[in-house]
C-alpha cells in the first residue's frame, strides 16, 4: 500500500454561513490537501463550530459549496460521510452503554467492526482501559472525552478515513494527553491524512504541516 500516494482535496468556495439573523462569515474560500492540517482559530461565537459542521455536512451553507475531490459533498452524501471522522462537542456516548460498546457502535456507523481487544488497546493508550466495562454514566467528563477520542486510534488509516474534523479535541485533557494527541495527529497527517481542528490552546505542530485560518471580523 502506497500511503504517500493519497491526494485528496477539500475545496471550499465562497462559503457563507448564517446563524439566526447574523452572518458568521461570507465569501470564504480555502483548499486543503492530503498531508495537511488546518487550524481554525477565532473568538467565541465567530463560527468555528458552524464551519466545521458545514464541512462535515451536518449544516447546510447559506451560499457557496464544499467540494471533496471536485465533487459537492451534498451530492456525495454517504460516500463522503463514510470517509470523514467528526468528533464534536458532544461526545456521543450513551450513558447506559460501556466504553467498549460505545466505541464499537460508533465505529460500526462508519462501517467497521472492531473486536473488544482492539478497543481495549486504544483505551489503554488513552489511559482509560480500566473503565472499559463501566456504564458510561459513572465516568467523568475527561474520561468520556478520552473514550470519544479513542476512535482516533482506531480510525487512523488515511486510506480508509482520509479526513478528521475535530472540534476542540484538546479540551478537558491534561497536558500529558494533549502531547500524546498532538503526536498522533502528526503521525496521521504525515501518513497522508487531512485534519481540520479548532482549539483555544496553540498547538505545537511543525510549520510546514499546518495552515492557519482566522475567523471573525471579516
Amino acid at each position: 500500500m502506497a500511503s504517500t500516494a493519497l491526494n485528496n482535496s477539500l475545496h471550499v468556495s465562497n462559503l457563507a454561513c448564517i446563524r439566526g439573523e447574523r452572518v458568521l462569515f461570507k465569501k470564504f474560500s480555502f483548499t486543503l490537501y492530503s498531508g495537511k492540517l488546518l487550524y481554525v482559530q477565532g473568538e467565541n461565537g465567530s463560527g468555528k463550530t458552524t464551519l466545521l459542521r458545514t464541512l462535515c455536512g451536518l449544516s447546510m451553507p447559506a451560499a457557496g459549496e464544499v467540494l471533496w475531490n471536485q465533487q459537492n459533498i451534498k451530492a456525495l452524501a454517504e460516500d463522503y460521510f463514510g470517509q470523514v471522522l467528526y468528533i464534536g462537542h458532544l461526545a456521543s456516548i450513551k450513558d447506559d452503554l460501556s466504553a467498549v460498546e460505545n466505541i464499537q457502535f460508533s465505529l460500526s456507523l462508519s462501517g467497521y467492526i472492531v473486536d473488544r481487544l482492539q478497543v481495549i488497546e486504544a483505551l489503554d493508550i488513552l489511559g482509560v482501559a480500566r473503565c472499559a466495562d463501566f456504564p458510561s454514566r459513572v465516568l467523568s467528563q475527561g474520561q468520556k472525552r478520552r473514550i470519544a477520542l479513542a476512535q482516533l486510534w482506531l480510525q487512523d488509516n488515511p486510506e480508509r478515513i482520509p479526513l478528521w474534523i475535530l472540534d476542540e479535541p484538546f479540551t478537558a485533557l491534561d497536558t500529558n494527553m494533549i502531547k500524546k494527541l498532538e503526536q498522533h495527529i502528526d503521525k496521521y497527517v504525515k501518513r497522508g491524512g487531512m485534519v481540520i481542528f479548532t482549539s483555544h490552546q496553540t498547538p505545537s505542530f511543525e510549520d510546514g504541516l499546518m495552515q492557519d485560518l482566522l475567523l471573525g471580523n471579516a
Partner: protein
Amino acid sequence: MNNRQKISALSMMFRILKRDITVAWRRRSDVMSVFFFFIIAASLFPLGLGVDLKLLHSIAPSVLWVAALLSCMLSLPRMFETDHVDGTLEQLIISNQPILLVAMMKMLAHWVLSGLPLVLIAPLIGLQFNLNMEELQMLALSLLLGTPTLSLIGGIGAALTLGLRGGGVLIALLVLPLYIPVLVFGSGAVNAVTMGMSASGGVALLGAVLALALIFAPLTASYALKISVE
C-alpha cells in the same frame, strides 16, 4: 490496527436495532412504565363500569385501541431524544448509511419496545371485557398490523418536535389526528367480529395504511431529523 471488516447496510441496521434494545433493557423502567400504563388504563373501564357485561363487550374494541394509542404515544418523545442530547444523532446522520434506513430502524426499535408488548398482552386484558376467543384473536391481529403504523407516524412527530420545549404535548397534537384512521380501522375490525360480520375489510385497510406509512414515514422523519441537528 488495520484488520477491520467492512460491514453491510443490513448489518449496520441490525446494530442500531440491537443498541436501542440494549439501552432500553438497561433502563427497563422506561419501557415497563408504558406497558403498565396500558394495562392500568384498559383495566379502569371494567372496574368503573361494573358488571354490565354487554356494555363492556360492546365498548371493548374502542377502549383497548384508545389505550394502546395513548400508551404508544407516551413513549414517542424518547424515540430520538437521548440520541439528540448526547450527540449520537449527529453521528447517525453522517454515518455511511442513508439516514432513511437509520430512521426506519429507530422506528422499528420503538415498535419492538412499545408496540409488540401491547400486542402480546392485549388478549389477556381483553378477557376482562368478556371477549371470546375469536374476538381476542382479531384484537391481537389488528394491533399487530396497527401498532407498527403508530410507531411510524409517531416517529415523524418525534423527529419534528426534537429539541423543542414542551415537545411532549406538541407531539400529541401533531400525531393524534393522524392516528385516527388506524383507530377507526383497528377498532372497526374488532367491532365487526363482535357483531358477527366479516373483519376482512378493516384488516385490509390496516394493512394498506401500514404499507403507506412504511413508505412515507421514514422519508419524512429523516428530513425532519436533518433539520433538527442544523
